[in-house]
């Protein structure tokens, strides 16, 4: 499956982005000179172990932090602050406003961004809620929903806005394995319906392969681009080497760590 007629100009352009943030005691470099392009209708996955700065990168694309170096452009315009053209779906279940029902949560995004008002917003909200199969729960408060349902509401809320790009920051990481698998299938179904562009952060190789059409591999401490590979949703074996895609990714991500652990530690012995 090829991406549908990719436009020559990328939708999201990330060029040489270095991200740094301060903790109480340290200045941490999260990513170092990361570059990538996301084309329209792509399912672009940022994959890497913890500490590779993928979530920080996502925050920067969301407009919550400015890069210390490099540029980030959406549709040719530099990203400066958060905005409804880049709707985010977070990992945490508390991203829904607990004081609003499912329907009101979806309407909240539409109304407070000034995109729609009144019945127009309500109709749009109900339409997207139907897409994630939650029509029956439209008048429920979030605390009465299961984790998977909450994430579906968050996805509906983001999709109702019809953003230029959907930013998903490990949206299924807090779900149990069965629900997670189901949510991935549902997301692919939604994508098949509307072909939205999505930037997806995950630390799970199977999830990246299942969800992504293109996968950016990041190495940790600080995050740097290791590879950018295409994917069609199947964990295929390489026709030449016979190595499965997941194993290939695994060895690329963890090659350095293996070298580190097999090296003789200072003052220690390898064999007993």
């Amino acid at each position, binding site marked *: 499956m090829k991406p549908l007629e990719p436009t020559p100009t990328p939708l999201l352009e990330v060029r040489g982005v270095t991200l740094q943030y301060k903790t109480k005691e340290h200045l941490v470099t999260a990513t170092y000179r990361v570059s990538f392009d996301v084309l329209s209708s792509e399912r672009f996955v940022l994959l890497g172990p913890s500490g590779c700065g993928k979530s920080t990168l996502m925050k920067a694309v*969301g407009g919550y932090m400015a890069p210390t170096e490099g540029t980030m452009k959406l549709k040719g315009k530099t990203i400066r*602050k958060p*905005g*409804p053209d880049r709707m985010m779906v*977070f990992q945490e279940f508390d991203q829904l*406003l607990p004081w609003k029902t499912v329907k009101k949560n979806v309407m909240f995004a539409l109304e407070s961004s000034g995109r729609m008002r009144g019945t127009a917003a309500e109709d749009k909200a109900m339409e997207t809620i139907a897409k994630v199969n939650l029509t029956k729960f439209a008048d429920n408060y979030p605390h009465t929903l299961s984790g998977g349902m909450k994430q579906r509401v968050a996805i509906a809320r983001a999709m109702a806005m019809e953003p230029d790009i959907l930013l998903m920051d490990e949206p299924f990481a807090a779900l149990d394995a069965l629900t997670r698998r189901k949510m991935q299938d549902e997301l692919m179904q939604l994508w098949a319906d509307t072909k939205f562009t999505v930037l997806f952060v995950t630390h799970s190789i199977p999830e990246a392969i299942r969800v992504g059409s293109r996968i950016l591999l990041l190495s940790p401490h600080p995050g740097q681009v290791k590879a950018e590979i295409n994917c069609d949703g199947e964990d295929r074996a390489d026709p030449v080497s016979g190595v499965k895609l997941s194993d290939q990714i695994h060895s690329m991500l963890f090659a350095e760590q293996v070298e580190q652990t097999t090296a003789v530690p200072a003052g220690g012995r390898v064999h007993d």
Partner: protein
Amino acid sequence: MTEMIARTLPEPRPRPEFFAEGRLNADFGVVEKPLTFAEKLWNNGALRKAVLLLLLAAGWELYARSLNNPLLVPTFSSTLEAFWTAIASGELPGKALNSLRLLLQGYGLGLALALLFTAFAMMTRIGTDLLETLTSMFNPLPAIALLPLTLIWFGLGDKSIIFVLVHSVLWAVALNTHSGFKSVSNTLRMVGRNCGLGGISFVTKILIPAAFPSILTGLKIGWAFAWRTLIAAELVFGATSGKGGLGWFIYEAKNQLEIPAVFAGLFTVILIGLLVENLFFRNIERVTVKRWGMQS
């Protein structure tokens, strides 16, 4: 090394697999059955508490009768009688209204100031420092301790009482609101900004509702502090410009040795406190934080 361990440990025995065939059994007993009427009654907290109150009242009546000294402990029935006569004469409701009028003024002013303080604290770091320092200084200071000072500053009158009321409300409410704002999760803040909210609309649409459980706690604590402070201040101050409140009613009744009336006054203080707590705040909680699942 690992091979040796593997050899000494037992392997699981192979066993036949099992699959349930056809439909599963449907002849299990109870899945769901309504509770009996008595069980439902006993599950009603209000009813259980009402029974307790009746027992306490009966105990009071018995003890007072056996003591037979109405100057020390009047009977429950004579207290009730004094309560009714004071209500019928319009004295007690009038005094209670005087108290509530003062209370609302002090409470309202205290809330407004708390709002200003918290807004300042939210906007600047030095504002936060100021609020935190002031609340930690003044929160432990009983409002009543300020009465001698306020007497000198404002003289005998409503102003003095309102001043101590503001003092008792302001810090509790500001402290709770501020800590409520601070504990709003980062995710919710990001969601708000993602939807294009900023400035005042961010505060009213995200921060205030998200911090509402804390704000409500602050309002309740502030109310309880204010009510106690008010009655105590009235006991000290007595009547101002000829119309005292509940505290003054109690003080006056004591001076005239009408002990049942003293008890009736105390009873009214408790009653109003309970009503505000159980009707007003309980209902606000029911339609807000409880419904939202933000407080169990």
